[in-house]
Each structure stands twice: as structure tokens, then as C-alpha cells.
């Protein structure tokens, strides 16, 4: 008896709540949920953008916070989507995920034929699987090198052109500053934890030496080559020398924590760290510069792993039309311009790179052109849904070398062997 009353009350309550929202919004809709990352200022930006759309449409949007580690975020999505859950309508997806999450995402062009127009062609191609546009580019990324302009100037160094110049500059500055009493200063911090971030960093080292991607365009495993071995050996030699050993457990935010508190000369990170390092509460405000990552020797090239995030709509969403509308709004040119100016997120519209306001806020955008044109993509398009395994084996092998358990040569030979096994048995 009591039970009926309670559920009756609940139903009445839900009904009245429904009419309230219905009266408020033009479309009698319940609500949407969107997942946003929380690295740096991502979450605040996401809230602001979503709020703007909510005001416009009257639809309530809930923001679901997700883990900072991209590996864990993917795992969370996969669990929700495999259960066909509608917990998240709009997913913030990494540039390597469309191939993995494809079966769970809607074709955005089925809702708006113009979706994707004006973005970088390469990004749209990356997000198109079997002719379906599965995600809209939100911002693009490539690894860049941050340096302490004050320290470089003080010790008479130019921003490094090659990795060996970086090593030398870092070693000298560290030694001299430490001798002067700054015991906590390190030379170079980056992402060395056993996760996706290490795959990005290590791919940059290898590519800057001309060691190729992990897998060639034809699917052949190419990682076991002298340049790649030299690159990984170089990185391993940093650990304990110019790089704290703790880097083996650092992700983006841990590296930024060390750099932004003034305890590192160089840092490899994504462009998002620029606005934060130059923020009003940053101890190193005005003492930071950004350049493309160094070349691996004289014949190497400047490179950067292509990253970036996109918005996709879950197939299990109850309100796909509105979800697509929100995704289109957040990835629109106006929104991306705001984000670029306020927080240095790289827009995915080529014309915004010549926009005077954007360049005024981010003077380094222009100088990074070479990085963006030479960016190296992770092999997700080639290896498809095996990508997670490939990446995991790659970062594990590199992590082992960095930690000193193995030499680079045998580690990469072992990696080649196991990737060959993986691809022969699978269908990459």
C-alpha cells in the first residue's frame, strides 16, 4: 500500500517536473549529458560553451566528468557503450578513437549534411569511417617544446634545434643553477608513465630521427630500425641525468606541475599548457617560450604527434538531434575562436590560423606551422581496433627501456616480433 503511494507521488512529481521543463524550453525535452575532459581548463571551457547553448535552446545539459588519463577514459566509454547505455549523449573522443568506438557512434551527416565543412581535411578524413562522419573536430593538438626563456637567456642558449642541443643546454643550465642553490631544478620533463601519453612522446622521438611510425602505411611493422633504436636510447639516457626518474610515472598534468612550479628548463607538452603557464597565478608567467620539438640529429625533422579531441554522438542517445546540434555548436568556428583566444586551444579551422585576434593571443601559433604540417599520426587508421594493443605494447617496450630493465635494441626487436604476431593472427 505504502509502496503504491510512494510511486504515485514520484510519478506525479516527475509529471510536474516534466511540464515545468516543457513549458520552459521550446522543445519539450528532458536533458542531455556531455562528457568533458578536465585536463587544464577543459572543464571550465566546456561548461561555458554548454551554458551558452543551454541558454539559447532551453535544454538542460549535464556535464559528466571523466578520468584525466585518456586510456582510462576510453575504457569508461567502452564499458558504457558496450552495455548500450545512454548515460552519455555526447562523447569527447580522442583522435585515435573513431576506429575503435565506430560501431557505437551516429553518422553526423545523417543529421546535418553540412557537418564537418570548413575543418582541416585531414581531421575530417580521420573521423570518417566507412563513409560515415563519426566525430566533429573540437581542437587539434601536436606535441611542442616549452622552454624557460629567462634561464636560456641567462646561460646563453638559443631554443634548441636538435635533441642533442637540448640535452646539452639542459645539462649545463641544471648544473649551474643547482650550483647556485636551486636544488630542485631539472632539465627536461615529459610524459613517461605507461599509458597513451608515452606512445605520443616516444613516437615523436622516433619520427624526429626518421624512424617512421610504428607501422608503415602498408601495415608492415617498421619499428625495429637503427634510427628508432637511437631515438629510444637517447630518451633513456635522459632519465636520471636531465630528467627526474619520477617521469616514468608522469602524465601531462604531472609534467606541467613540475614545469609550471619553475622546476624544469624544458617540457614536452600539448599547446594547452601555454595559456596556463602564462596565467596570472603562474610562477613562470612571462618566462616561457614555445618552439617545435627538436630534430633528431642533422638529418632529422621537427615533428609532433597529432593529437586533438572531437565530439561524437552516441547511437544510444535518446535525443540524437539535439545532441548533434550541441556538438555542432561547440565545434563551430565562433566557439573555437573563443577557446583559442582565451586558452590557446588550437582551432580545427584553417582560416582561424590567419585570424589577427587568435594570433595576438597565441604568437607561437604561427611559428608552429612546421610542426602541424609535419605532425606524425599514430597508426590507428592502419591497425584499426587493434590500436590499443599496438599502443600498449609500444609504450610497455619503451617504458622498460626508460626504466633500465632492457636495452633499446632487444626491446624493439621483441616489440617487432610481438607486433608481427599480433598482426598475422589478427586482421589489422
Amino acid at each position, binding site marked *: 500500500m505504502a509502496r503504491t503511494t510512494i510511486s504515485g507521488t514520484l510519478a506525479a512529481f516527475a509529471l510536474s517536473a516534466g511540464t515545468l521543463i516543457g513549458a520552459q524550453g521550446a522543445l519539450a525535452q528532458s536533458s542531455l549529458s556531455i562528457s568533458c575532459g578536465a585536463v587544464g581548463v577543459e572543464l571550465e571551457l566546456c561548461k561555458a560553451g554548454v551554458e551558452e547553448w543551454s541558454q539559447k535552446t532551453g535544454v538542460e545539459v549535464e556535464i559528466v566528468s571523466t578520468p584525466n588519463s585518456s*586510456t582510462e577514459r576510453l575504457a569508461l566509454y*567502452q564499458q558504457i557503450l*558496450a552495455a548500450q547505455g545512454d548515460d552519455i549523449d555526447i562523447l569527447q573522443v580522442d583522435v585515435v578513437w573513431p576506429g575503435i568506438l565506430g560501431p557505437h557512434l551516429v553518422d553526423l551527416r545523417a543529421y546535418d549534411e553540412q557537418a564537418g565543412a570548413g575543418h582541416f581535411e585531414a581531421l575530417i578524413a580521420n573521423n570518417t569511417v566507412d563513409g560515415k562522419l563519426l566525430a566533429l573536430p573540437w581542437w587539434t593538438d601536436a606535441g611542442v617544446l616549452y622552454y624557460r626563456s629567462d634561464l636560456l637567456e641567462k646561460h646563453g642558449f638559443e631554443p634548441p634545434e636538435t635533441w642533442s642541443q637540448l640535452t646539452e643546454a639542459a645539462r649545463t643550465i641544471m648544473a649551474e643553477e643547482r650550483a647556485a642553490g636551486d636544488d*630542485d631544478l631539472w632539465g627536461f620533463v615529459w610524459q613517461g*608513465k605507461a599509458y597513451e601519453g608515452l606512445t605520443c612522446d616516444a613516437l615523436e622521438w622516433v619520427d624526429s630521427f626518421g624512424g617512421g611510425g610504428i607501422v608503415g602505411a602498408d601495415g608492415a611493422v617498421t619499428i625495429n630500425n637503427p634510427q628508432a633504436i637511437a631515438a629510444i636510447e637517447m630518451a633513456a639516457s635522459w632519465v636520471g641525468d636531465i630528467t*627526474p626518474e*619520477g617521469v616514468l610515472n608522469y602524465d601531462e598534468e*604531472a609534467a606541467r606541475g613540475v614545469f609550471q612550479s619553475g622546476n624544469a628548463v624544458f617540457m614536452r607538452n600539448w599547446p594547452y599548457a601555454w595559456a596556463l603557464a602564462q596565467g596570472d597565478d603562474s610562477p613562470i608567467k612571462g618566462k616561457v617560450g614555445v618552439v617545435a620539438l627538436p630534430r633528431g640529429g642533422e638529418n632529422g625533422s621537427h615533428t609532433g604527434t597529432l593529437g586533438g579531441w572531437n565530439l561524437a554522438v552516441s547511437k544510444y542517445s535518446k535525443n540524437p538531434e539535439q545532441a548533434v546540434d550541441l556538438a555542432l555548436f561547440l565545434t563551430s568556428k565562433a566557439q573555437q575562436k573563443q577557446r583559442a583566444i582565451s586558452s590557446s586551444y588550437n582551432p580545427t579551422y584553417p582560416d582561424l590560423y590567419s585570424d589577427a585576434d587568435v594570433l595576438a593571443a597565441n604568437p607561437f601559433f604561427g611559428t608552429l606551422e612546421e610542426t602541424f604540417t609535419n605532425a606524425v599520426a599514430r597508426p590507428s587508421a592502419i591497425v584499426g581496433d587493434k590500436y*590499443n594493443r599496438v599502443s600498449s605494447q609500444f609504450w610497455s617496450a619503451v617504458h622498460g627501456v626508460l626504466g633500465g630493465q632492457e636495452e633499446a635494441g632487444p626491446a624493439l626487436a621483441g616489440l617487432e616480433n610481438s607486433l608481427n*604476431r599480433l598482426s598475422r593472427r589478427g586482421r589489422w
Partner: protein
Amino acid sequence: MSEATPSSHQARRVRTAWLFLSPMLIGLAVVAVWPLARTVYYAFTDASLTAPGDYAFIGAENFAVQDGGYWYGLLADPLWWTSVWNTLVFAAGSVAIEVVLGVILALVMNAAFPGRALFRAAVLIPWAIPTVVSAKMWAWMLHDQFGVVNHTLMTLGLIAEPVAWLANPDLTLLSVILVDAWKTTPFVALLVLASLQMLPKDCYEAARVDGVHPIKVFFGVTLPLIRPALTVAVIFRLLDALRVFDVVYIMTGNAESTMTMSVYARQQLVDFQDVGYGSAASTLLFMVIAFLTALYLTAVKADVVREGR
């Protein structure tokens, strides 16, 4: 009640017993037997999390299969054996530390001293904090650059430069073991304390009259008397330690130097979406735990029998 034949009386008692047991048995079947059976079943398939309904039987290929001169499968995967080894080291290390410290703590808590109630409550705090929270807290405290542990040790002059507790592959497993010991020692202490409080007083009085040294009293009287409680505590802790996941995953993620069997199984199941292979790993994990527990119980039993003689 009066002249019923013993056998029918017995049969009725058995029926009643089953009746009373049935809710429990049904509950167990639903929450334990069924999932376990499904896991074992999936271990022989190529099921994937992307399309969980669409799979085929592949026999024992998830465990071992030869193809083109190479062995594939769980038993041929060096990482699996690394994770088995890590798990065993973790279990042996953490349980040993916890038992020793737990007994000492229990003896202290059992003694009468001012502020005992407060002390007992304080000891339980690590056990009361959720593992996720305490593991993350420790990860920050052990951070090589701004962690409080390095700061303290350096201020005291015990180390010359910061130690990368969670990054140096030689130290990570040790760090994780110590954090686990910090968290679960109170649990062992509590079980031992309960048994200490039920010990007969006369043995101790006799020992005191005879003037036996306290350390001898501990090994001669206390330890044998609390042995049943210790056995139970060790079994609980061993089972827990062999399936450890949270503390390891939060502190060091998927790093190979600390990967345990559960972390391995999770990586296969969740990161790689390979339900078949991950289930095979979970099944082996279950068998390893069952085997070790049986081994331990047999050893304890043999020990008790020998002592009894």
C-alpha cells in the same frame, strides 16, 4: 516427537535444513556461481566487448595454441607470468608484513594504558579510508618532486636526492606493498585483538608466578593460543592480496613492473575489449587463488595435526 523412527526424524531434519539453506544457496548461485560459470564459458570463446553477443568457440586457444612455429595464448605470454610473479611477491610480502605488525599492534592495544580507546580508534583509520582515496593520497605523498615523503626523508638527511618511489621499477612493487600493509595491518590487528581478549587468564598468571620472560610467554603461550585467529586472518588477507587491483592500478596504472593478475585481466577485458582472452585470464586467476588457498589450508592442517600429537 515422541516415538518417530530415528530415520524419518533424521529425514525431516535434513529437509528442514535444506529449506533453511535454500535462500542462501539460491543467492550464492545467482551472485557467485552463475558469473563464475559465465567467465569460464567465455574463456573458451573469442567474444569481444564491441559486440558481446557475437562470438564463436575456439577451444583452448586463449590458453595456448601453436601457429606457424610460435606459441600464442595466455600460457605463452611472458607478461602473464610477470603478473603472476608480481602477484605472488605482493601477496607474500604484504601478508607477512601485515601479520607481524598486526600482532604487535594487537598486543599494544591489548595492554592497559591511558588513552587506549583513542589509540584503538586511531589505528583503525587506515582501514576505514576507501582504498581508492588512500592509494591516491599515497601516490601524491610518494611523488618524487613534490611528495611529502621525499621531503621528510631529505630533511632528516636519510636520502641525498629525491627517490622516484612509483617510477623506479626496482621500488614500485615495494612501495605498493608498503602502502597495502599500511592499509590492512589494522584489519589483522583487529582480528588478533579479538582473540587476545578471549584468552584464559590462568596461563598468564601461572607464567607470572613462575617468572617466565615475557618474550617466552608470547611464543610459548600467546602465539599458540591465537593461532586459529591468525590462520583466519592470513586466509582473508591472502585471498585479498592475490586478487589485488585497486591499490596497484591507482598508484602505477598498467606499468609492467607492478602488473598483477587482476590488472592484466582488466587490461585485456577493458582496454583491449577481449572478453574471451580476459575471461581466460580471470579463470586462471581464480584457479591460482583456489590452488594456493588449498595449499595453505592443507599446510595449516598438517601443522595442527603434528602439533596435536
